[in-house]
């Protein structure tokens, strides 16, 4: 027999100014099963909560309805108060008399009537509530960081420094990411490698970090605190324990004409190679696609010259299985490449390059040792044009967003050019200068005022070649849209930042959502920028959207704190408002017919197949089974289930039907 207590709150005058709280309490007190109906000025205050706690004991209540503000505001408060009063917290419901009644209606009879209806509905609902226990799941205190760029490095180091184990997965042969390719960084113009490489070494040497380079995530199963991740370690064709990284093999390799990815195709590398001198780990890999041995079946010069006999031509890919508690996705970004800008002649003219190529030209360790030479003939360009927003903010190109970093790096490029080629002229075509950030706008002003970079506000319509010069045609919109024509020796396109290749596949493996540009989606754009909608998986860096280094590092540290907070508990407690398959009676007689339509609609892969077997192992029937750790309680399966075999704790079929009936019928 239900014994319900109803507590009507005045919320100062917020509710009582329009709703006759006395009448509400009085009317509700006459309802069947309601043994106590009382009102108070501030239910959420300490005396208010004490009132509830004492009433639970005094009246031996089996359910509580607090008629006050939105449950989104104070449901946890009152559930906690009930728990302290000795009542299961899930036997407490809230009737929203403030946001959904007193604040939105005038003071009259109808408003009080509506308030009574709202409370009645919750009384009927709470009668059908069941006492639930929070779900506890264990936590594996090992984190996985996917991606070894600056964001991944920061996240891994921060997590490792809290004393937890970290596994870092990087698909290329070295960690470092795009930052390792950069020459100098804005707004300080300090050398990128100088600030990055010590951290790369720290990752490799940290006792809590296990580093797998040349490895990719194969599959991810499980849920927060309990992921099982399969990782494919691609064959490096090398025994890493024996290799000393002397590099003799890379100098003797006869195949030397492979475009170097690290140099953005502006240099060549051998088939057995170390991506760049400061690579971590500093061990070569064999690029089997281009290696003469793998193509023609003979060569093996590297094997012959190797002093430690470390080369392994028959090494297979290895799949390793890891138990992981939390995952940080830090897979970074890419930039738009050739063929995307036919109007700018990219791909046709050698002296039109992208921003990352310019970084390599300006880098002291780059193909030209830091001298700005144009790719076609190695001449130093005397007149250089930078085009910002190449692709970005251009819905016609399918990229409506701002790539955020280009304004700043274009200013940096122009500055670096002027610092290296004093007599040269640098022109920048831009749409708007977006330089929000600490010391960012000052940096752009410096480029314009101190280094005399010629900023032209307008877009470039076309680039073509005439007498060995690149003719850049555009407009200056600040000069009444006057046509501008510049004879350039070299053009640098600040091409749009886009999602990294394979981002979509990885998101699907991780079961996280991604936007139409294949950037990973955060759980909330403002208040949960680090979390994803899948519990236990966090984001860091430019895999979410193009970001500069400070933003990537901040977010990485943010994600590390989220992981550390998760790992500070031995067991996770979760709200038990999850779906449940009706298993009254023996499993063979369950109403579940095993159609598994629920499995198809579940966004969390929380529905498993359970086989009911005879003693000799014959499968009699397959039933749906909810994994409580994975279920987030959306209830999509409940509405879909044809045989009404799944129900949702807190929003059961009985409860919602009771609410509808109570709401519409006279009392």
């Amino acid at each position, binding site marked *: 027999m239900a014994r319900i207590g109803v507590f009507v709150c005045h919320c100062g005058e917020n509710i009582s100014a329009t709703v006759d709280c006395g009448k509400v309490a009085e009317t509700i007190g006459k309802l069947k099963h309601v043994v106590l109906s009382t009102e108070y000025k501030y239910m959420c205050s300490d005396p208010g909560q004490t009132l509830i706690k004492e009433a639970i004991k005094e009246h031996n209540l089996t359910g509580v309805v607090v008629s006050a503000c*939105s449950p989104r505001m104070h449901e946890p408060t009152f559930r906690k108060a009930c728990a302290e009063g000795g009542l299961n917290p899930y036997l407490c419901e809230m009737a929203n008399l403030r946001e959904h009644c007193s604040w939105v209606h005038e003071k009259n009879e109808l408003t009080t009537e509506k308030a009574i209806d709202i409370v009645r509905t919750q009384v009927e609902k709470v009668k059908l509530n069941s006492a639930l226990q929070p779900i506890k799941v264990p936590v594996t205190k090992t984190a996985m960081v996917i991606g070894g760029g600056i964001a991944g490095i920061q996240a891994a180091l921060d997590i490792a420094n809290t004393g937890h184990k970290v596994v870092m997965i990087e698909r290329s042969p070295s960690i470092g990411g795009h930052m390792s390719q950069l020459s100098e960084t804005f707004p300080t113009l300090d050398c990128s490698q100088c600030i990055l490489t010590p951290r790369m070494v720290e990752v490799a040497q940290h006792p809590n970090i296990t580093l797998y380079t040349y490895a990719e995530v194969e599959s991810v199963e499980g849920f927060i605190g309990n992921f099982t991740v399969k990782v494919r370690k691609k064959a490096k064709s090398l025994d890493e324990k024996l290799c000393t990284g002397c590099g003799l093999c890379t100098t003797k390799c006869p195949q030397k004409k492979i475009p170097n990815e690290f140099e953005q195709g502006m240099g060549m590398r051998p088939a057995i190679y170390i991506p760049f001198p400061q690579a971590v780990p500093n061990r070569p890999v064999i690029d089997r696609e281009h290696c003469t041995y793998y193509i023609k079946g003979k060569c093996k010069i590297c094997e012959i010259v190797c002093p430690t006999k470390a080369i392994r031509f028959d090494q297979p890919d290895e799949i390793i299985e890891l138990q992981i508690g939390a995952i940080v996705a830090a897979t970074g970004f890419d930039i738009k490449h050739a063929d995307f800008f036919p109007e700018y002649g990219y791909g046709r003219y050698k002296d039109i390059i992208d921003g990352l190529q310019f970084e390599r030209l300006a880098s002291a360790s780059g193909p030209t040792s830091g001298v700005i030479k144009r790719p076609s003939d190695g001449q130093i360009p005397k007149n250089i044009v930078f085009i910002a927003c190449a692709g970005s903010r251009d819905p016609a190109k399918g990229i409506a967003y701002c790539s955020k970093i280009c304004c700043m790096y274009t200013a940096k490029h122009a500055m670096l050019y002027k610092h290296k080629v004093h007599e040269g002229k640098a022109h920048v075509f831009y749409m708007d200068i977006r330089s929000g950030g600490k010391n960012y706008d000052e940096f752009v002003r410096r480029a314009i005022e101190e280094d005399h970079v010629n900023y032209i506000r307008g877009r470039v319509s076309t680039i073509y070649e005439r007498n060995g010069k690149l003719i850049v045609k555009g407009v200056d919109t600040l000069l009444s849209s006057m046509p501008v024509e510049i004879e350039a020796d070299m053009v640098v396109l600040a091409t749009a930042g886009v999602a990294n290749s394979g981002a979509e596949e990885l998101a699907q493996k991780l079961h996280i959502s991604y936007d139409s540009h294949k950037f990973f989606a955060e759980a909330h754009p403002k208040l949960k920028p680090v979390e994803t909608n899948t519990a236990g998986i966090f984001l860091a860096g430019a895999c979410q959207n193009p970001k500069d280094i400070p933003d990537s590092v901040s977010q990485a540290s943010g994600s590390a704190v989220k992981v550390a907070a998760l790992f500070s508990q031995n067991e996770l407690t979760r709200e038990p*408002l999850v779906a449940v398959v009706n298993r009254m009676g023996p499993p063979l007689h369950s109403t579940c017919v095993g159609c598994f339509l629920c499995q198809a609609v579940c966004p969390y892969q929380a529905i498993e197949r359970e086989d009911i077997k005879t003693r000799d192992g014959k499968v009699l029937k397959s039933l749906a089974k909810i994994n409580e750790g994975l279920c987030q309680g959306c209830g999509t399966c409940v509405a879909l289930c044809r045989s009404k075999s799944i129900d949702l704790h807190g929003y059961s079929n009985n409860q919602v039907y009771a609410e509808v009936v109570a709401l519409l019928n006279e009392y």
Partner: protein
Amino acid sequence: MSDFEPKVVAFVCNWCTYAGADLTGTSRLKYASNVKIIRFPCTGRIDFMLLLKAFANGADGIIVSGCHPNDCHYTSGNFHAKRRWIMFKELMDFMGIDMNRVTFSWVSAAEGAKWAEVVNETVTRIREMGPYVSYKELVNKTIEEEVKNE
């Protein structure tokens, strides 16, 4: 008919429309008090048989509202609701229920003003349409006949 006050039930999701309706309150925007809200975790949870149950119990109009496409807290619940709604609409049409009695809308947690608009617009429409009794009578008649046959 001028004194007719329609009974409107709103089935809303917790994360967008319920929060949006909270915002309507916090912004002190006024709307008709005829509407009463039932909270669901997600529009994907809404079993559309509930709509029939509501009509059978005397609802004159119904609002179903959740997160905008792609904004679902549970990734895809609103898409499932939308699909189910498309199917269900056909069934309701076949049964002779006037589709104007049901409002299907997306109201986000930031759209307090939109919620007030959706409610007022629905209540005005239903008020003009008058009380809805035919489905309720039909259900009651069926039950009576069944009781008689037994």
